[in-house]
């Protein structure tokens, strides 16, 4: 069984146990379990400075399961550099809410167009509820 690190979303109002539950299910689906837990400090969450040093310090990991891809979107732009950095450590990356898995740089490159488009449209439409969009149409 693979050993995964669980990294919840510090900014989400959903109760942490709910995040852990969804993360555990994703870990199970990817043939593993959660052996270590953590979260970014609220102040550092936009730049995610906690996660890489922590992953480097934690022996025996095969990957990390994030609650959501949004954890890489709280800075000014999608944090692709960090994704590459984690993959270069030889670790798998999984995103529970979106049910996405990135196991290599090649896999990241295949997903990158979709990741960038969704990041772009979400930033563009942030704050615009569907009601307002329909009202303006």
């Amino acid at each position, binding site marked *: 069984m693979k050993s995964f690190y669980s990294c919840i979303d510090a900014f989400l109002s959903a109760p942490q146990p709910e995040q852990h539950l969804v993360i555990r299910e994703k870990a199970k689906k990817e043939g593993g379990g959660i052996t270590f837990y953590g979260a970014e400090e609220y102040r550092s969450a936009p730049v995610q400075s906690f996660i890489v040093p922590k992953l480097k310090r934690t022996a025996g990991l095969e990957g990390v399961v994030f609650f959501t*891809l949004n954890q890489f979107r709280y800075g000014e*732009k*999608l944090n*692709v*550099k960090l994704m*590459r950095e984690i993959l270069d450590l030889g670790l798998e990356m999984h*995103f529970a*809410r*979106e*049910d*996405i898995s990135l196991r290599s740089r090649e896999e990241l490159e295949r997903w*990158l*167009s*979709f990741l*960038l*488009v*969704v990041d*772009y*449209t*979400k930033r563009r*439409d942030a704050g*615009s509820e*569907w009601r307002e*969009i*329909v009202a303006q*149409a």
Partner: protein
Amino acid sequence: MNWEDFEKNGYGVFPADDMAPLDELRRQIFAKTRDIFGLEGEDPGAAFNSFHKLSITGAKLNELRVKLIREVTNSVDSGTLIFNAFQNTILTLLGPDLLVQKNTNMVIQQPNDPNPSELHRDAPANSPYEIVVWLPLVDCFGTKSMYILNRQKTAQALAKLDTAPENWNDFHDYCLETGDNVPAPYGTALFFWTGLFHGSRMNAEKETRFSLNMRYKSLFSPGGLKEPFEFFKIFRTSPLTRLGLEFQKSETIR
């Protein structure tokens, strides 16, 4: 069907531009259905229509239906085959940069099944910029088809619901009374806007309905409340969009 009618009603039944991909899709789904349900015969339409003669109901039917959906999603490229069959309609509605639903939703509606698809609209929570392609794999008519409320009727239904939101039964009855059964023979598809109320009545015809539904959305249009990665995948992009994305990748990663 002209586009003015489509815009006025929010839906339309369009014939396939090319039957070959549609026949191929039906052939592949028929092969899976034969394997999973033990359906016999060589003619997909006739076999689907008489599916109820297998007398599979309840939990067993649902278990096998879920298995069929999984098999079809994993091994039949429904999004591409539907696109190839209705290319002109989809491109006119949505343009060249497209997302397509990841899973293939299938409905098997046997005669007198007391649990037809419930009244609902897709948006919200789906995006109001999506199109639903409802594809009959057999000739659908009368109660074997689905009912839909056009834009005007949907607006009236919503107004009624607003006045008495606690009285769902009245609202439901109103929608059943005013909804139009949409005949859709095999070889056509019902394209409808996600903001319309729709559902199925109990199938009072003597044949089983086999249908599937697939959603397409423009890559850059506003999303709904659902996670795009969970429901969609990129289907196709224009040459210009590919140039833009390559540029954005190099800029983002710098």
